[in-house]
């Protein structure tokens, strides 16, 4: 009898399969695209193009502590140590094509969406230029108004249509609208299960150890449009729900004392270290801004809805939206504190952080700290500074708890 697998086992299998299939696709002569993490992959799958995600790959290289050599290679080529470290890792990998952390095949197409930053335009422009391959750019204007306005939606919808034409030219095949509809449906379902799973952390104690969001993130990025992905996130949801209903917290050996949110990307090379410091003080990172990032929900065959959903990513929204978003998270998840990662790689996330921190503190009264780090450059993080900040946060959270207890 086949044993029932946990979502964690499936997660690893799925990731391995994802990379193995990419090589098989390449061998078969199928086209492979390198894509940004929140891009309309539905179009690629419908076109029979295999999608790979350099951000995922760079994060994995970082987590396996193999990023520094690639970073140094990129810097040797002239890339400044001040630019995004995912970009440095990937632009080096593009040439080296070998990492002990795992490999991905070279792309035939670049698929870029600037709803996460404008940096990806420059990064992907360079790949396209160096490899002499086509690039499709989805330009999603920064939403300086609170809502995503109709003008932006119209522009993005037109770009989706232009991309379909481009894909037809690139593949030499008619675009498969039926397949497109199916992928849209699956992607939506996967997004919903991803969000629903993460919402289980609202329970007290949270059945979710939030660092798992970082572990599962790679899969929501690469398997959003697949049945296996959808089933994985449903299973993860069911496991968390069951655990939550039994009143079980994140850890077997320890109680959840404080509930915090992590703002920003993980420090991949120090994932274990950053986690252990929090656990040492009974701090559970119950959520982050990630759950909403891949909650890309729109009706099947609704290109306008699709345009709006992809443009709605929180980093592409204005500061008032960012403040409301975190405030809501604080209330929904009954948080005690917030940890802001001032990520040397991500100016787009960083340069609003101070004002967001002040405004969220004003609204919610909960304490927070900012620490300096980087998503994949191990040189830009100090564990000692991180721990000192966490200690300070714990002291503030404890003081507040005592005041509440009167």
């Amino acid at each position, binding site marked *: 009898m086949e044993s029932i697998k946990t979502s964690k086992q499936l997660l690893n299998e799925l990731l391995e399969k994802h990379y193995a299939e990419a090589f098989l696709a390449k061998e078969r002569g199928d086209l492979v695209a390198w894509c940004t993490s929140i891009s309309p992959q539905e179009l690629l799958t419908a076109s029979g193009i295999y999608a790979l995600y350099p951000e995922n790959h760079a994060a994995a290289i970082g987590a396996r502590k193999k990023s520094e050599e690639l970073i140094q290679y990129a810097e040797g*080529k*002239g*890339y*400044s140590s*001040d*630019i*995004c470290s995912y*970009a440095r890792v990937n*632009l080096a990998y593009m040439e080296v094509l070998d990492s002990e952390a795992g490999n991905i095949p070279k792309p035939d197409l670049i698929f870029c969406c*600037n709803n996460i*930053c*404008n*940096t990806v*335009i*420059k*990064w992907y*422009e*360079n790949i*396209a*230029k*160096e490899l002499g391959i*086509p*690039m499709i*750019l989805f*330009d999603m*204007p*920064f939403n*300086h108004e609170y809502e995503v306005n109709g*003008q*932006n939606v*119209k*522009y993005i919808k*037109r*770009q989706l*249509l*232009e991309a379909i034409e481009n894909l037809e030219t690139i593949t030499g095949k008619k675009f498969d609208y039926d397949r497109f509809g199916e992928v849209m449906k699956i992607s939506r379902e996967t997004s919903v299960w991803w969000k629903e799973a993460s919402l289980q952390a609202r329970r007290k104690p949270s059945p979710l150890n939030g660092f798992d969001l970082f572990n599962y993130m790679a899969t929501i990025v690469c398997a959003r449009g697949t049945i296996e992905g959808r089933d994985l996130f449903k299973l993860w949801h069911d496991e968390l729900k069951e655990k939550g209903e039994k009143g079980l917290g994140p850890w077997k050996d320890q109680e959840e004392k404080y509930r915090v949110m992590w703002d920003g990307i993980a420090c991949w090379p120090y994932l274990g270290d950053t986690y252990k410091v929090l656990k040492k003080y009974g701090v559970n990172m119950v959520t982050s801004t990630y759950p909403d990032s891949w909650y890309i929900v729109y009706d099947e065959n609704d290109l306008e809805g699709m345009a709006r959903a992809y443009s709605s990513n929180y980093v592409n929204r*204005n*500061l008032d939206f960012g403040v409301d978003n975190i405030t809501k998270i604080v209330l929904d998840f009954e948080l005690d504190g917030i940890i802001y990662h*001032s990520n*040397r790689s991500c*100016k*787009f996330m*960083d*340069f*609003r*952080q*101070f*004002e967001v921190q002040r*405004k969220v503190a004003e609204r919610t009264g909960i304490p927070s700290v900012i620490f300096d780090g980087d998503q994949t450059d191990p040189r830009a993080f100090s564990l000692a500074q991180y721990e000192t900040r966490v200690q300070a946060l714990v002291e503030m959270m404890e003081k507040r708890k005592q005041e509440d207890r009167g």
Partner: protein
Amino acid sequence: MDRVSELLQELKTIARNPRKSIETTLKNSGKKGVGCFPVYAPEELIYAADAIPIGMWGGPTKGNLSDRYLQTFCCSVMKANTEQALLKQYDLLSAVIMTTFCDTLKCVMENWKAASPQLKIIPIVYPQNRKASSGIEFFKEELMRVKGELEEILKCSVEDHRIQESIDLYDRYRRAMGRFVKEMNNFPITFDAVTRHLVIKASYFMDKKDYLQKVEELLGILQNRSPESSSGKKKVILSGLMSEPEELLHLFDENGFQVVADDLAHESRQFRESGPEEGDWQTRMAQRVAQQDGCAFLYDQEKTRGAGLLRMKEYYKADAVVLIQMKFCDPEEFDYPILKEELASERVPLLYLEIEQQMDSLEQLRTRIQSFSEMLA
């Protein structure tokens, strides 16, 4: 003092004293001022609304008020602008057009809404898919929105023919500047690196019509003059965001360089592309942006900047290219490795200088520029 010296002195003084110059321009013209963030702004619309577009490209600030909003690894131009906004230096402007060409600009706009609520901010998004019909249509709508906001803030109504006239004026200015920067090369002593920069910079603080008049007058005189000898000077092309602080350019003058052309966002990229002469005003403005290539801030799948620099090198018979890298300017930083390879493959000497707009010491740069000069000799 001859007329050329007189005009140059006047323009240099304007460029060196932005605040005073802006006050004078606004007072003399009786018009309102509208600030324009880097890299590009719809100046033609502002001008047609009977206001003066004012360039906002940082400055020599010293304070640390901006630290409240921006981390240390933010570009010095945006830190300087934020510092000046917090000091209420921009309160003389009726509105500020803020742009989103890079991630830092987007964040700075959001911070300003919170930090300087007294300023009237008009955001504008230039499309990155600017050549595709989706991008052109988007930009036309964006221009209409910005026009509407300008009309509301400036309490005026901007008629189409006024915008057409304004575009005509701007295209005349752009063409004149194209001739002017070429003409300067015949006068390497008069137009040393510092003067060349300041004369171009002055346009950011003046009524374009008045500026154009002075440029045309200068051109008229220079075209009838015998050229100055440039013997012994090493000809360079400057590329990058901008060439400030001014002391940096003194180093080029001290070391016998002649700036024969530039590919700076702050200078030639502003005027090297004129738009079509026909069509409605929205199309004319959108097409101009669509045509502009070789700029780090505008999506360019072919990445033609290197090819453009090579063409410039050939045309101006330059000895070398100098890339002036504003520290923490991501878009420019991403272009460098590609440019480096392209220039190296054609054996074009390249000097890479990393700068900040406010620098305590330029000694390191002095050494590098000296050595580069010796290497070229």
